[in-house]
């Protein structure tokens, strides 16, 4: 057995748009608080180091992983693992929406957001380059994976991590509340809850959802962070719309039981998927060059 149980703390708060130094301070405070709560991992929302709609602030809030601000957060992972998200700048001056997992004072894994939405109110691809990999890494809880917000709205993303054996999938998000007027419909909030519940059961793993709160130019981020168990039940749920640190214990025995009871990932026919994807790609290529 890879692990027995560990404790996750989710830092749900409202970053200051464009003020990296103020946000870094908040991060370090939450790292301390998570440590006091005996958590082994503390998870921050998408772009919590910069704010979400960075637009033309991108150029000044971007940080190379060697930047002192990033080094400080990595350094802060000596006693508790830290999953944080920022605008990453590469040596060749590309900008990514990145989530970094640091442990024991070292950078263990980087996930660069794969899907940068440009529909409706979104305009991410205008400023950022998309990541090209979705990989698991070894951390607390054995194999873990990261999907940033929109990544998780694509069916293939959790599938690819589950196939690699992920038992925990972290989802840092900056999800705006929208389409939420109707009495019968909770809009994006309801969609996230359904999505995490179905994914967790299909993949037989934990989902750790870290969504920010606050407002940016009237756009409301609703929070509602929490941990969804492999049985499709919430292990812990944070409040909507307010700062919180949500703490949950992730017990591997739940993964084990779920995967025995409903062995969907065991029965997954990865080679069939691969062959059919190649065929589907070949057919698509006749009229377009999709990737």
């Amino acid at each position: 057995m890879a692990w027995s149980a560990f404790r996750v703390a989710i830092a749900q708060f409202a970053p200051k748009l464009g003020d990296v130094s103020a946000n870094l301070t908040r991060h370090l405070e939450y790292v301390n608080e998570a440590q006091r709560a005996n958590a082994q991992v503390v998870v921050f929302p998408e772009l919590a180091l910069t704010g979400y709609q960075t637009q033309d602030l991108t150029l000044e809030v971007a940080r190379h992983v060697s930047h002192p601000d990033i080094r400080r957060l990595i350094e802060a992972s000596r006693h508790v693992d830290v999953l944080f998200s920022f605008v990453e700048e590469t040596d060749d001056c590309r900008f990514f929406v990145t989530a970094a997992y640091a442990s024991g004072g070292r950078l263990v894994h980087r996930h660069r957001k794969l899907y940068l939405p440009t529909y409706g109110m979104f305009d991410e691809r205008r400023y950022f380059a998309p990541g090209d990999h979705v990989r698991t890494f070894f951390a607390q809880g054995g194999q873990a994976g990261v999907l940033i917000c929109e990544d998780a709205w694509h069916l293939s993303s959790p599938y690819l991590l589950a196939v690699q054996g992920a038992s925990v999938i972290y989802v840092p998000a900056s999800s705006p509340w929208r389409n939420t007027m109707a009495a019968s419909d909770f809009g994006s909030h309801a969609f996230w809850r359904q999505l995490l519940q179905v994914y967790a059961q299909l993949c037989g793993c934990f989902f750790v959802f870290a969504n920010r709160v606050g407002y940016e130019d009237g756009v409301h981020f609703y929070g509602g962070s929490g941990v969804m168990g492999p049985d499709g039940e919430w292990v812990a749920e944070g409040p909507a719309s307010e700062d919180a640190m949500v703490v949950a214990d992730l017990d591997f025995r739940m993964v084990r039981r779920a995967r025995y009871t409903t062995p969907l990932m065991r029965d997954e026919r990865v080679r069939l998927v691969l062959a059919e994807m190649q065929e589907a790609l070949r057919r698509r290529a006749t009229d377009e060059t999709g990737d």
Partner: protein
Amino acid sequence: MRPEIEAKLSLNPSLVTSVLTGFLRDEVTKVGFQKVVFGLSGGIDSALTAFLATEALGRDRVHAVLMPYRTSSRSSVEDALKVVEALQIPHTVIDITAPVDAYFAQVDRILGYEASALRRGNRMARERMVTLYDLSAAMNALVLGTSNKTELLLGYGTQFGDMASALNPIGDLYKCQVRQLAAHLGVPQSVLEKAPSADLWADQTDEKELGFTYDEADEILYQWVDLRMSPDEIVSRGYPERLVRGIVERVRRNQYKRRMPIIAKLSGRTIGLDFRYLRDWGT
């Protein structure tokens, strides 16, 4: 209104109230303000804004301003005072008759003819805006907008007049949703029930002037704007063609009122085009 559309436009009032009061608290305080000021006309839109602001900030941090003109209906002032009474909030009455009349006395003489009702109405709306922005500086309070989504889309308002504000909590609510939320929050009955009116001249009502009801507008706008149905598709669903095309054309014609002035592009970074920052930059 068709039942299926009515259901879609029916609000979850406590959820919407929590988002809108959170919006007011957050967007007011993070830019360094503590207070808000708004015009209170006696109509349902400004009454709803007053209720939301009071719930968000508390009665000591809101200030209502009643700005009647000599032809304003008596019931408008009475209804505005009922809102003040219900919320127990501070208010000021500033009669705009003298500055508006002084302006037209001079300008009518210079131009040699009498101003139209439309010009007079626009001037009143802008006088109120000028007053609110002056009180904003005097009271160190942000000006709240009171235009709803229906009138913003239809362009049924005065540019740089009643459409001007620092923050608008109700601009994404259709008129029928304003009514629901106002009823939920306890806006006085006489305000809820009276016919909507800009009250710029005697017996004016919005629906008479527009030529259709707000319910008709909301139903068509929702399908066109929110559901992205084409006007043809809406007509094919059984709505009068004249009405649908009339509303769509109104929205298009008034787009200018919803945007900042356009700037002739010369440089590589032009304000509004490729100089992009949120207003909440740094907050």
